[in-house]
């Protein structure tokens, strides 16, 4: 008979073995050896801390009570593992690229490095984790008590044994879980020890199972018959519980802090998931393979009322197989210890990074680089947290009395921790998920979990029975176990359904209604699109950051030698010269932040770097503001550009106008002399001939008549000139009154041609296209005729062809009557074209004797008539186009 003393000795021996393995693995890893420490097998085995003592012992108990339902707890994780390609792979990639230290850190990092969220998740994890630790302590104590009952000589006291177990586990977790500060680094010692424990517990359960099937039942066939004949021998599961538990265990598998620790934080190589994807489900299958046979045989063999949770232990004992019982005990012990150690590690990282460090940083405002050794403080915080968490577990165990109330706590903890799921999944796959959404969702889920499951389940009546019966204030629809009046649902299913669905709805709605901060949006993009780019968001500028301060701070967090190595490597990268401090470039500060976040969490690292980089820290908001500003400047400068273009356009126009003005003024001067000349020439002849007539006696009548005629002609010429000037000034001042009449274009042209060609002068042949001229006009016919006459006589005067000819064609262009006058001469030289319509302009010499007012008058007339006259370049000869708006014609019809 194995005595209690032997058992304790074996236990201690086992613990010493674990210490040895952990120590050796740490040594091996530190010396760079032990490639197998990083193998996928170790990774897979470390995942099996999912199977705690609750599953080791409790699965059989569960099977004895409700048949195959126990298997749901293993099926959920199996489904998660087989969907690793789009679930866990992303999670692990993010965990590695963001150097995430815990599930709280991941959530906080995703939602803009928000510490509030991290604190919420931490509280949730501690609340869910503490009873779970108590459950492990209970299982160890219970298994001790089984041996104590069997050994009447032993002096066994339950309370003290629990205390020593808790203390021992705390010491182990502290020794191996907080050796190095970088929580993101692998704890090879712990992980290897856990892997060993996984092998032990699997081996133990398989051994008991094989003993039961082949040792007691006599093979597989008889075992199956025995199963069908037993009281649980018929298929019976509650559909709600079946699906809920599969879902719940899948959710908890991802969200549990300890699972996150081994799965993401301790992950060494993403490709390990490939192996774990089939190997871990296989492990779970093996773990549950013999559960039903053990339960059935236990129900057969053990006396009525014995605890089915302990069949794994009591069956070998009752069959006198002490060594198997011992092995089974070690298996259960392994399950409990590994779970407690990893949970304590994970929770302590969360507590120290998200609760203790922020508080400490706040009390040390602005002094991250000069105050005491951060490293010791973080490690201290972590160790104290482990001790405190273990103490919580211990006291919870004592307070709850260690009774059956604990048995259900596993699922209760699952339901609690699963509240993280919406924020987690939303954060990984939905860029629109915001911090507010996560906070609201978590709070809703958390509250509902406490209200509908945790409090009603507690012994001692924290919620008075009347509230459970009738709801608070007598509001029946708020009864904790029948929300909204829907009764008759299994309490577990009820809680999971309501809390998770309302949590998800709140999360989605609040996310959609709120607007994320820039940092959140950056992190969101990084998380959701982690496979596209795995870079960190930029946020620092190092212009003022002091390398020395950074160095001092880094030393305090990472330790002197790792910090120096990090800085040296950076210096080498920057300028190839080790031995100097690197420049605090943004990239370097960013890398440093990532490195530090591996030790103290993203939010804290961000805050600490912020303290040193201080005023020079450029938040993403600042960057966006800068971007905004530069966008504005860009717009402003483009406006300026447009303005300057406009200005230069105006300047060009001004220059042109000025040139024209100068030309006009020159023309005016020229004209004044011309006018003087024009006036003087007739005046001179008038004066000369009148003097002759006055002073010369004896002029013949013939001579007198001739001289008087000359005087008369010259006076007429003067009058004509003055008439023209007067006409122009009347037209220009707008005082002209139009004498509107109706006629066709043909009539007007006929009159104009005949009067223009009436006088003596060179012969000009006029070609006309009469059919096109049958256009009725309503306008001032005399004025229009004047224009035509002017144009025709111009052609007559200036056309330099040997046989001058003028083509007059009329047509309808775009709602206007257009009449072109084109001669066959050389035309007007291009430099003069712009000036022909100016007053006093004359092309070439004044051989024709005009005053240069004709075309100016034409332009004014056409202006008054609502049309225009323009020079048509490129027609061979001089070409003028007169256009009249068609409206005049229509008005006439």
């Amino acid at each position, binding site marked *: 008979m194995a005595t209690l003393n032997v058992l304790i000795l074996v236990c201690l021996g086992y613990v010493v073995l674990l210490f040895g393995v952990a120590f050796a693995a740490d040594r091996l890893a530190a010396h760079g050896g032990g490639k197998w420490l990083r193998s996928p097998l170790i990774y897979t085995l470390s995942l099996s801390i999912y199977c705690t003592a609750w599953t080791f012992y409790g699965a059989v108990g569960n099977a004895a009570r409700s048949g*195959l339902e126990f298997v749901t707890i293993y099926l959920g994780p199996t489904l998660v593992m087989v969907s690793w390609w789009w679930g866990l792979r992303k999670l692990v990639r993010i965990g590695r690229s963001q150097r995430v230290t815990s599930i709280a850190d991941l959530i906080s990092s995703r939602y803009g490095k928000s510490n509030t969220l991290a604190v919420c998740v931490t509280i949730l994890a501690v609340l869910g984790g503490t009873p779970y630790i108590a459950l492990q302590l209970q299982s160890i104590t219970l298994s001790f008590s089984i041996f104590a009952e069997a050994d009447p000589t032993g002096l066994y006291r339950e309370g003290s044994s629990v205390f020593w177990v808790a203390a021992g586990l705390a010491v182990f977790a502290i020794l191996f879980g907080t050796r190095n500060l970088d929580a993101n680094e692998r704890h090879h010692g712990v992980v290897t020890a856990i892997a060993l424990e996984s092998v032990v517990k699997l081996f133990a359960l398989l051994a008991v199972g094989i003993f039961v099937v082949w040792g007691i039942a006599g093979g597989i066939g008889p075992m199956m018959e025995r199963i069908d004949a037993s009281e649980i021998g018929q298929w019976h599961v509650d559909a709600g519980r079946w699906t809920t538990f599969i879902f719940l265990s899948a959710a908890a598998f991802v969200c549990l802090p300890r699972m996150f620790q081994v799965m993401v934080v301790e992950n060494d190589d993403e490709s390990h998931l490939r192996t774990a994807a*089939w190997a871990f489900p296989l492990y779970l299958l093996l773990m549950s393979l013999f559960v039903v046979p053990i339960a059935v045989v236990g129900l057969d063999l053990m006396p009525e009322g014995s605890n089915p949770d302990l069949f794994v232990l009591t069956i070998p004992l009752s069959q006198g197989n002490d060594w198997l019982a011992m092995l089974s005990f070690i298996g259960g012990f392994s399950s409990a210890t590994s779970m407690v150690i990893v949970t304590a590690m994970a929770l302590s990282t969360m507590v120290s990074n998200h609760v203790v460090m922020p508080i400490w940083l706040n009390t040390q405002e602005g002094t991250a680089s000069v105050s005491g050794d951060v490293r010791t403080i973080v490690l201290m915080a972590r160790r104290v947290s482990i001790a405190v968490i273990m103490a919580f577990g211990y006291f919870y165990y004592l307070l709850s009395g260690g009774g059956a109330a604990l048995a259900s706590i596993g699922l209760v903890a699952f339901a609690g921790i699963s509240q993280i799921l919406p924020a987690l999944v939303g954060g990984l796959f939905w860029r629109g998920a915001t911090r507010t959404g996560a906070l609201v969702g978590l709070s809703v889920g958390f509250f509902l979990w406490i209200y509908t499951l945790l409090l009603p389940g507690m012994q001692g009546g924290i919620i008075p029975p009347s509230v459970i019966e009738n709801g608070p204030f007598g509001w029946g629809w708020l009864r904790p176990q029948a929300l909204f009046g829907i009764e008759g649902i299994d309490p577990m299913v009820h809680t999971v359904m309501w809390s998770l669905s309302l949590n998800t709805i709140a999360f989605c709605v609040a996310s959609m209604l709120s607007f994320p901060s820039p940092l959140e949006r950056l992190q969101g993009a990084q998380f959701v699109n982690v496979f596209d780019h795995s870079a960190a968001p930029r946020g620092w500028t190092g212009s003022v950051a002091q390398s020395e301060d950074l160095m001092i701070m880094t030393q305090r967090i990472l330790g002197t030698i790792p910090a120096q190595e990090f800085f040296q490597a950076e210096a080498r990268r920057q300028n190839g010269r080790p031995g100097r401090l690197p420049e605090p470039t943004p990239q370097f500060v960013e890398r440093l932040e990532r490195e530090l976040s591996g030790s103290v969490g993203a939010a804290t690292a961000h805050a600490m770097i912020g303290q040193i980089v201080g005023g020079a820290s450029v938040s993403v908001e600042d960057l966006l503001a800068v971007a905004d500003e530069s966008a504005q400047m860009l717009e402003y400068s483009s406006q300026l550009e447009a303005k300057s273009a406009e200005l230069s356009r105006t300047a060009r126009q001004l220059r042109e106008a000025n040139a024209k003005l100068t030309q006009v003024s020159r023309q005016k001067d020229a004209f004044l002399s011309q006018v003087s000349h024009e006036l003087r020439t007739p005046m001179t002849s008038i004066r000369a001939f009148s003097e002759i007539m006055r002073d010369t006696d004896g002029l013949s009548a013939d001579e007198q008549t001739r001289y008087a005629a000359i005087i008369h002609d010259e006076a007429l010429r003067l009058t004509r000139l003055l008439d023209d000037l007067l006409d122009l000034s009347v037209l220009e001042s707008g005082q002209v009154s139009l004498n509107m009449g109706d006629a066709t274009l043909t009539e007007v042209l006929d009159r104009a041609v005949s009067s223009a060609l009436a006088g003596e002068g060179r012969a000009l042949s006029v070609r006309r296209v009469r059919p096109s001229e049958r256009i009725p006009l309503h306008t001032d016919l005399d004025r229009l005729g004047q224009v035509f006459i002017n144009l025709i006589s111009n052609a007559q005067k200036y056309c330099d062809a040997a046989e001058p000819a003028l083509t007059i064609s009329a047509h309808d262009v775009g709602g206007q009557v257009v009449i072109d006058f084109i001669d066959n001469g050389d035309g007007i030289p291009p430099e003069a074209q712009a000036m022909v319509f100016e007053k006093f302009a004359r092309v070439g010499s004044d051989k024709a004797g005009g005053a240069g007012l004709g075309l100016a008058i034409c332009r004014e007339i056409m202006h008054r008539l609502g049309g225009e006259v323009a020079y048509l370049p490129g027609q061979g000869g001089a070409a003028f186009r007169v256009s009249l708006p068609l409206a005049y014609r229509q008005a006439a019809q």
Partner: protein
Amino acid sequence: MTARGEGEDRPSSVRPLLFLERQSYRRRRLVDAARLLPFLGAGLLALPLLWPDETDGAEALPLSSAMFYIFACWGLLILISLVFGFAARRMAAREKAEPETEPWQR
């Protein structure tokens, strides 16, 4: 743990041009299969809910058959996952070897 040789190509299947395209096509379909696997699993595991139990009046299914079914499904999932794990490994090795493989080739 890695079995030897699982990442290597079988030399018999070398057919340069066609082979490449076919290979990347297979790769995509494999990933599709991996994505669908959890749904297959969920479907298989939801099936037992349709089985009769004693509350239906009909004769309930014996627990041994139920166990057999569930463990068989479980084993099947593990097997497919194993196959995909090895295939993914080969994929990763090949993608490393031919980084020019276009991601849009589907």
